[in-house]
């Protein structure tokens, strides 16, 4: 048995044990999400319009993450509403900063990996960079929105006669904690995903200014910041959405 299959099975068993039927749905959401990412890659490689593909798949991914991953439709509705609005704002931010930083394509460090591959494939890699950035942030945004509304709704559920002021105070408490750790998830995800690159910079004695101006570093650093900004915007928006929904 290959390692991947064994890990897949272990995860399935654990998710059923701890999550029950809900666990199976979460498991499905991850599989579907993977298929969506791969489908995006396939469609673009066949020459599909990159902007249109993104416009179709971004809401689709949010829907899968939130509605299949979350099992309480009250939580899902609120999370979708707030995370979709945040995503729209973030896309505008990404377009602006990606234009300013001018980081299309693949870094010079990938040189060896590119041997035998075409360097004029006829695809807009600047636009693909935007998709990569949007996709990377989607997870963080929707997770923060779900965690926020799950906590807030559970709180409302346990204490139905909570005053509006106390609710906002508790909301801010939960939000601060969520921001703190969401930032860490993003940071460590970023460290984890680019450990090899940082070791490369250190081993080859890059100067600080060389790193700060490097294409790959800029790409990754910007993506990390987009995700954190997304999570930041989720906190007030979700508290607002949950507080102003009558039926809970």
């Amino acid at each position, binding site marked *: *048995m290959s*390692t991947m299959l064994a*890990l*897949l099975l272990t995860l399935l068993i*654990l*998710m059923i044990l701890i*999550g029950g039927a809900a*666990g199976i749905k*979460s498991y499905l959401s991850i599989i579907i999400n*993977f298929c969506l*990412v*791969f489908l995006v*890659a396939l469609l673009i490689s066949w020459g599909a319009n990159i902007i249109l593909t993104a416009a179709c798949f971004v809401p689709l991914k949010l829907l899968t993450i939130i509605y299949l*991953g*979350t099992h309480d439709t009250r939580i899902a509705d609120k999370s979708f509403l707030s995370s979709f609005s945040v995503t729209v704002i973030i896309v505008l931010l990404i377009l602006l900063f990606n234009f*300013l930083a*001018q*980081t299309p*394509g*693949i870094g*010079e*460090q990938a040189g060896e*990996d590119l041997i035998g591959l*075409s*360097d004029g*494939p*006829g*695809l*807009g890699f*600047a636009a693909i960079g935007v998709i*990569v*950035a949007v996709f990377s942030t989607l*997870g*963080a945004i929707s*997770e923060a929105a779900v*965690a926020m509304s799950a*906590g807030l709704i*559970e*709180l409302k559920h*346990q204490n139905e006669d909570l005053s509006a002021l106390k609710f906002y105070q508790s909301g801010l408490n939960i939000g601060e904690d969520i*921001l*703190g750790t969401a*930032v860490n*998830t993003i940071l*460590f*995800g*970023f*460290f*984890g*995903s680019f450990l*090899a690159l*940082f*070791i490369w910079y*250190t081993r080859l004695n890059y100067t600080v*200014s060389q790193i*700060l*101006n490097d*294409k790959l570093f800029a790409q990754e650093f*910007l993506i990390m910041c987009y995700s954190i*900004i997304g999570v930041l915007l989720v906190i007030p928006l979700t508290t607002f959405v949950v507080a102003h929904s009558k039926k809970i």
Partner: protein
Amino acid sequence: MKKKYWLSLVVLLVGICAVLFTYFNTNYQATIAVITHVEQLDDVKVKDQYDDTDHEITQQLTLRVLNHQHQGKNYTLKNTYEKSQLQDQKYHQYQRVFVQIRRNQVSISNVKRDWVIVLIIFTLALLMMILIGNKAWLVLASLILNSVIFYAVIRFDIQKNGAGTITIYSLAAIIFATVSFLLYQGIHQKMLAMLTSTIVALLLSFGLSYLIMRLTNEKGITYMAVEYATQSPRSLFIGQTLLGVLGAVMDESTDIVSSLSEIIYHNPRITGQQLWQSGRAIGQEIMGPLINVLFLIFMADALPMTILYLRNNNAIAYTFEYTLSLGVLQSLISAIGIVLTVPTATLCAYYFLVKREASK
């Protein structure tokens, strides 16, 4: 309240100054030039070996050098790039670039991007000040502190040259977790519950995954596909995986303990059974989305390469193996950590927040 806006204003002003300074700064070792004029000379349709059409565009650039011995001199050069901008890129008027000048021949080595990094850092700081207030400093401090620790860990790893990876990165993970929780929470029962849950879940899930890896003889793990490897790719993979798991497990421990502690605060006599119900309810809701966070970070990264491989008529299985498979493995191990955190976080919340408080 007023103080917050004054501080935000200060951050805004300092930010504007810092961005302008970095943008116009010419005090670098390398030579800097500004592109004063761009003219497109040629646009040729080209076909690659896989029959895909691209455009090869040639621009004539006029540069004015801004520092060092050639300061003030103007140069012209030709830049040829593919419209795809996969490896080479298009230049714009007023863009600042690093150049190399040899015998009156000028070549562009890189685009100046540091000012954009400064710009986004201040955008982030400003938004944090306005939306969160005081806690913004803590978040920023933890970002900086963790980066410093990360740098120290890398130095240490290079010294060991890929040996003892599991020990190095497990210890690093525990230090990262302790530092972050100390900063955000201070020392109290809630923090202890979060920290204990994080460490237990991290070691448990990595231990389990590593056991599975060994039992299956690491069959099908394409270590060759680790990007930018300057040391044993297996050690890089293990380090990356441990760091990825850490973030997710920390996040979920905090979410669950934090929500449970609000519930305990409003209802101190909650039973273990009720707490497990609530913990599981919260856990079930965030499990899926959280797994997707890391999954997307790991996947999206490999997307450009995946697209390129597929575009170059590689088989789907081959493309998957060389571009996405390691990210999938990392996500799976993180996912196992995330699922195991639900019981550990609830148990820790019960032990530290209900039992210990009651015995006081």
